[in-house]
């Protein structure tokens, strides 16, 4: 059973249940995905499926991609990812997977590239509290404060891994255990509870939740 799919985050909205309770949901276009390659223990040492999703403008298509996708009788895909499987998949190259794979699945993990924040300070990046607004603090309200001690003979080094300012975001990020609120098979949409990483129109990988459901 394949319980993963590629998709695109469309944005957030809300849904009412009959009692009037509001659920915040993220709308994700999930599939249809084409199976571009089937990996097995015999050939690759592990079981996996390579899935493709989304279209590429004809002027942007590269020959290697065209050739690879041709085996699946498909145009090249914009977003290609591998999905690991526990056992051999009953799937062939060229098969199409739709949102129906999530029919019986109550919770999903969503993997995506988080929004880039650029060079961020310690308050935003690590949740430091910064310094007080007053009581003599000048021009240092969001600074990290002390980053180490001068211990004389043992040296005055800064510990490795000391949290400091630096590049933040734009990394692969997994958001776990999103409740599946609704599935729209006609339009290949899935609605999951809560916010997921990445910008609107960003590509995401959806998979059955590892720890729940």
């Amino acid at each position, binding site marked *: 059973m394949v319980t993963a799919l590629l998709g695109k985050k*469309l944005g957030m*909205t809300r849904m009412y249940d009959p*009692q*009037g309770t509001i659920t915040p949901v993220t709308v994700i276009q999930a599939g249809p995905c084409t199976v571009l390659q089937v990996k097995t223990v015999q050939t690759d040492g592990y079981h996996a499926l390579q899935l493709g999703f989304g279209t590429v403008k004809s002027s942007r298509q590269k020959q290697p991609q065209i050739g690879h996708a041709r085996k699946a009788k498909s145009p090249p895909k914009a977003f290609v990812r591998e999905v690991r499987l526990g056992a051999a998949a009953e799937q062939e190259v060229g098969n199409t997977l739709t949102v129906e794979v999530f029919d019986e699945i109550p919770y999903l993990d969503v993997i995506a590239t988080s929004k880039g924040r650029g060079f961020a300070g310690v308050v935003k990046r690590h949740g430091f509290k910064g310094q007080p607004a007053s009581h003599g603090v000048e021009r240092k309200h969001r600074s990290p404060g002390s980053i180490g001690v001068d211990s004389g003979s043992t040296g005055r080094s800064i510990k490795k891994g000391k949290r400091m300012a630096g590049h933040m975001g734009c990394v692969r990020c997994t958001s776990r255990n999103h409740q599946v609120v609704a599935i*729209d098979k006609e*339009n290949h*949409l899935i609605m999951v509870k809560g916010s997921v990483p990445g910008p609107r*129109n960003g590509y995401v990988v959806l998979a059955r939740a590892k720890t729940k459901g």
Partner: protein
Amino acid sequence: MTTKALDQVVANQLKKTVPSFRVGDTVDVHVKIVEGERERVQVFNGTVIARKGRGINESFTVRRIVNNEGVERVFPIHSPNVVDIEVKRSGFTRRSKLYFLRDRVGKATRLREKWVGKAKKTDTSQ
């Protein structure tokens, strides 16, 4: 494009007909309330001082004075718990948010009534 898709997703959750009302109107809001097993409808009467959001996120704020204390409630327009909105009076107002009413007490909170005539019937502010 994305917005269009999102609107489509919630299209079936929107109410087919939303009563026409504007900021400044005095309204009766019929709210469904669940008490244990029983379900009943409560009426909240007051002045609409704000209307914000769009689509399924649209909500409005109703202000009234209870026991000399200002009370404001925010209702999501498309919530199934908001059963009905009845316009009792239409007030004349030149702004979209009547937050200045919070600083006023007594007679000063009254709004000039809108002239209700033929123009009202063709009013399609929705």
